[in-house]
């Protein structure tokens, strides 16, 4: 939610600290600030706040209010209270809460609650003789500062109350409410409601509505209806200030796909005390804009008043959890700054929890308040001493043993996705229809990876792709006595191939498997052949290690893990060109490589020798000695071109290859 600094300022006697200081305090000890922006500030607002900001700017904090503080801090008052506790400023509530006897000439509304479990308090009042005017400048500016559109003074006032004290309010046009009655009841099957934004909803019997004596007027706690709202012709209002069960509002809002500022607040649960504050504040503000208005008696249906909560915590308990050495005096200061009423005896603090702080119910909640108001930076750092070495995880331990063998045999370790388009266990709603099944084998992902890696083989100068994956697979077959749930198993798959038709790697893998058996100390290793070409086998690893002993000490797999600095990979395809040539027998590959490097083409990402052989040749000379025998060497190598900016064309690469021919020819190479 967005918070205006000028608005927050209205709750503090002293000036708030400058923004950077405030940002640091709030970030560390209260809320995450997602963004800070500055907007121009008009005179209206600076007059209201009492602190004219000479910069002529307001600062807007976009604050992420998490569920525990959604009870109080989705409103400026709650955040301001916290800020004052952190800065030492004096908190003051600038609002006027209407407290007068009603005008008996104005008929008070009738309120009924059908189910007091889901509507815990409902207050209302009727206000006659109002006119619907544009909002005064200060009100417009407040709302616009936090991204709300100004509509008219009545709607704006209800919004202002919501964003001030976290209490959603609703105003009805009294002329459109039949029977001067509001009731919180479940909808009748088939009742239809048109929302403010013209959506037609057919209601079900689990939906709580606010209705007049005949028809539903709105979705309780979520959204008002189209036909009972305030319009330019409205002269008389009925105000709704109610509180609803959080879970019910959440379920209803999910069912209809409607989330609003109001539903967000109710589903997070707010205090019944806000029902009263919200109504009284709304009446005061309406009277401010409509001094001529006449207000009925206030109606309050409150079947089971909220019980005042008290929580106790001792200084010793606080220090025992935090690892601090705070004293009574520190704690006294903190609870005083938080405006938590308390008594203290024998170093035990008994706190009367402010109504709106529903997040404070157990002593740990108070300890958190102490930790953050005292400052989380002040928590010391103490490494606990445990007099034993940790035990490795059995599965990971034996996996590592196999990884080490695979590594020696030249296999690389890959990870692929757990989701796919085939499998037995399904996700209700995945990221795409081809990702809604959980893999029941690793082989498929490994095969896909093989295809990609074979294509990229020249980029890595590989002629054979060797790789393996350890991962969990999911089936709906029950595996008895296994710690994991239905059919989740650890598998291990390996893949080897060179992409050539006639090659076979069965013998090579048999050797590898025998090394794995040796290192595990097992006599047999069952595997499935997933694919003959490329050669992929898969092993149920959980079964393999079932009878192996529990490990006791961790054995590191790597000596210097993650020591490499990663070279980013071009998203564009590469093109390769092979060059074969004769050189005199004494010319080394290194010198040829150096000649190629001289060309200095940055797009030549690799220069790899893939074939070399030598032969003796007779050289005819004109000398009297006649012919002589010389050694000639053939080098065949591959140049790989790739750009980070674009896809290279064949023509471009043909051009790029010319300088290589030139430099090689100049240096006596005979291109074949």
């Amino acid at each position, binding site marked *: 939610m967005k918070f205006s600094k000028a608005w927050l300022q209205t709750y503090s006697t002293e000036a708030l600290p400058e923004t950077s200081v405030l940002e640091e305090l709030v970030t560390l000890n209260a809320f995450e600030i997602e963004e800070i922006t500055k907007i121009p500030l008009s005179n209206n607002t600076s007059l209201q706040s009492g602190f004219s900001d000479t910069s002529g700017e307001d600062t807007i904090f976009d604050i992420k209010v998490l569920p525990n503080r959604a009870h109080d801090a989705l409103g400026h008052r709650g955040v301001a209270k916290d800020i004052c506790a952190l800065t030492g400023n004096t908190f003051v509530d600038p609002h006027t809460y209407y407290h007068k006897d009603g005008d008996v000439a104005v008929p008070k509304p009738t309120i009924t609650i059908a189910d007091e479990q889901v509507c815990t308090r409902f207050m209302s009042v009727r206000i006659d003789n109002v006119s619907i005017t544009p909002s005064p400048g200060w009100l417009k500016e407040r709302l616009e500062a936090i991204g709300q559109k100004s509509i008219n003074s009545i709607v704006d006032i209800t919004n202002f109350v919501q964003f001030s004290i976290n209490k959603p309010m609703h105003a009805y046009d009294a002329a459109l409410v039949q029977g001067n009655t509001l009731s919180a009841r479940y909808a009748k099957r088939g009742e239809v409601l048109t929302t403010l934004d013209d959506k037609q909803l057919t209601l079900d019997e689990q939906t709580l509505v606010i209705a007049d004596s005949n028809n539903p007027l709105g979705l309780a706690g979520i959204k008002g209806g189209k036909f009972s709202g305030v319009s330019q012709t409205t002269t008389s209002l009925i105000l709704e200030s109610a509180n609803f069960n959080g879970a019910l509002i959440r379920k209803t809002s999910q069912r209809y796909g409607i989330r609003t500022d109001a539903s967000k607040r109710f589903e997070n649960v707010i205090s019944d005390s806000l029902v009263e504050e919200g109504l009284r504040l709304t009446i005061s503000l309406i009277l401010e804009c409509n001094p001529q208005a006449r207000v009925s008696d206030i109606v309050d249906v409150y079947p089971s008043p909220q019980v005042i909560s008290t929580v106790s915590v001792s200084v010793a308990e606080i220090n025992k959890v935090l690892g601090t050495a705070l004293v009574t005096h520190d704690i006294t200061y903190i609870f005083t700054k938080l405006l938590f009423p308390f008594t203290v005896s024998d170093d035990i603090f008994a706190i009367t929890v402010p109504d709106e702080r529903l997040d404070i119910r157990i002593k740990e909640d108070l300890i958190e308040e102490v930790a953050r108001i005292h400052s989380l930076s002040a928590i010391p750092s103490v490494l606990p001493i445990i007099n034993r070495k940790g035990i490795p995880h059995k599965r990971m331990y034996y996996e590592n043993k196999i990884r080490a063998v695979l590594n020696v045999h030249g296999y690389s370790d890959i990870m692929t996705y757990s989701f796919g388009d085939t499998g037995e266990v399904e996700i209700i709603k995945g990221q795409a229809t081809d990702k809604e099944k*959980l893999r029941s084998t690793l082989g498929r992902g490994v095969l896909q990876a093989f295809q990609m890696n074979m294509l990229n083989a020249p980029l890595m100068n590989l002629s054979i792709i060797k790789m393996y994956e350890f991962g969990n697979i999911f089936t709906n077959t029950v595996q008895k006595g296994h710690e994991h749930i239905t059919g989740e198993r650890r598998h291990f798959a390996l893949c080897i191939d060179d992409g050539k038709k006639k090659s076979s790697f069965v013998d090579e893998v048999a050797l590898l498997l025998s090394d794995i058996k040796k290192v595990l100390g097992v006599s047999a290793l069952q595997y499935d052949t997933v694919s003959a070409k490329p050669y992929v086998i898969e092993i149920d690893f959980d079964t393999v290690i079932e009878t192996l002993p529990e490990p006791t000490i961790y054995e590191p797999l790597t000596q210097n893990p993650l020591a490499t600095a990663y070279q980013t990979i071009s998203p564009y395809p590469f093109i390769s060109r092979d060059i074969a040539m004769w050189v005199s027998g004494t010319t080394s590959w290194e010198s040829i490589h150096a000649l190629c490097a001289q060309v200095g083409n940055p797009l030549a990402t690799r220069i790899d020798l893939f074939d070399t052989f030598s032969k003796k040749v007779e050289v005819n000379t004109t000398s009297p000695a006649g012919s002589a025998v010389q050694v000639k060497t053939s080098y065949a190598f591959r140049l790989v071109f790739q750009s980070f900016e674009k896809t290279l064309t064949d023509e471009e690469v043909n051009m790029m290859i010319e300088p290589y021919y030139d430099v090689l020819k100049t240096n006596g190479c005979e291109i074949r």
Partner: protein
Amino acid sequence: MQGHFHPITQAIDKVSQIFTDIGFDVVDGPELESEWYNFDALNTPRDHPSRDMQDTFWIKPQTLSERNLTDAEKRALSLHGSLGHVLRTHTSGVQVRTIERWIKEKKEFPIAVVVPGKVFRNEATDARHEAQFYQVEGLMVGKDITLANLKGVLEHYFSEFLEKETPVRFRSSFFPFTEPSVEVDMQCFKCSGLGTSADVRCSVCSASGWIEIMGAGMVHPNVLKNAGLNPDEYQGFAFGGGLDRLVMLKTGIDNIRMLYNGDLRVVNQF
């Protein structure tokens, strides 16, 4: 020619080395987890907004076969009439499974474990977000384990992992399963916390000097209770954070998705 170990494998190896060395066992749990261990037991009730904090992959119940429930799962099922299953959204479910096992096997306290494991989130993917990734969970529970101990363990962890003295700072936060809860920032290893130096803004930490790296806190009494411990007697800390991010920070890998498509152009660099 030798093969190569996946960067995540190397990171898990490193984490395991660091933590077994200071007395933490390495444990794991199922990736396909019940609603009880992933949410309910972690003080994240049904129909509560705190469940929205993680985008969840729910499993179609009809595609799962019958299985043996733990006692706690049986209680949850009879209380609510249903027990859903999810791809675990965090490794935190292993907290409760570990405490249960500790009690059952009458093991000596404190409990001290780390859980490097795969987790899943149903959210849009980009260079920094992936539907599957790795977390490292830590749990230490005894009679006198403090928030200060959490700071000590994390500073040790990051300093060892990054091979550089790395202070951490706590920021106020909320998780249903910890109280107090904190976000953990580690000092930026690149600029050593300076943020901006000689007018150059540090690109790793966006010049803030700190890197947001995990959530943590003191285990909520309800979680201890749900796992079978008396919270008046036992207390401890838990932490959980993405391993991929640490790997990316340490190595410079610039796209998390490159870790999970089996691409040897990535793996073979390590």
